[in-house]
């Protein structure tokens, strides 16, 4: 299992599409920095194909006022959870 990390806003390029196209069936995706915009209910459908394997970083949601606005299908983790995700994955790939 690999962890894919996306830090770019959904509208800032192709990072999300590229991450999704490189994900294997059990891989996970973590949204950090402006990537957490993708957790908004109006944008989260982009991630429908990986439901249950989509994470977003608590600190970055909170700084942006998105903490109670994110879609409930996104699992929120804090930075300790980020470390745990990297422990559980054999490798990480970053898409920026």
């Amino acid at each position, binding site marked *: 299992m690999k962890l894919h990390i996306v*830090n770019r806003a959904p509208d800032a390029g192709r990072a999300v599409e590229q991450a999704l196209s490189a994900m294997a069936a059990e891989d996970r995706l973590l949204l950090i920095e402006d990537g957490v915009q993708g957790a908004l209910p109006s944008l989260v459908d982009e991630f429908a194909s990986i439901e249950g394997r989509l994470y977003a970083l608590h600190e970055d949601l909170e700084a942006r006022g998105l903490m109670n606005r994110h879609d409930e299908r996104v699992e929120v983790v804090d930075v300790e959870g980020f*470390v745990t995700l990297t422990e559980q994955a054999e490798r*990480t790939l970053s898409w920026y």
Partner: protein
Amino acid sequence: MRYAILLMGAPYSDQASHSALRFARALLARGHRLETVFFYHDGVYNAARLAAPPQDEPHLVDGWAALHAEHGVTLQVCIAAALRRGLLDEREASRHGKSGHSVEAPFELTGLGQLVDVGLSCDRLVTFGP
């Protein structure tokens, strides 16, 4: 586990440096070892010794140096990316006939081969892009 971080974003221009530093602190707190932070692309600007951010903002250059002092993390800066961007230690400055320097210990200028080595020898490499 043995971790390495690859940082490619400039400080104060995007969040990558903040994210990387916070992640580094968290993995160390969790008991892992952080061998190296490798600075490439605009990440090399994190080694600018003269950085003078406003006092109410985090001082990222000092943040990296503290990580070295407290945990022995090596701070490796890609030399090719750094020279282009005006980041020279005393040795490179003198080699290029320039007075003064803009990079100092604990940051070390090193070849890109170190990135590949560290990426393959550590258990985890986590990249923070701009």
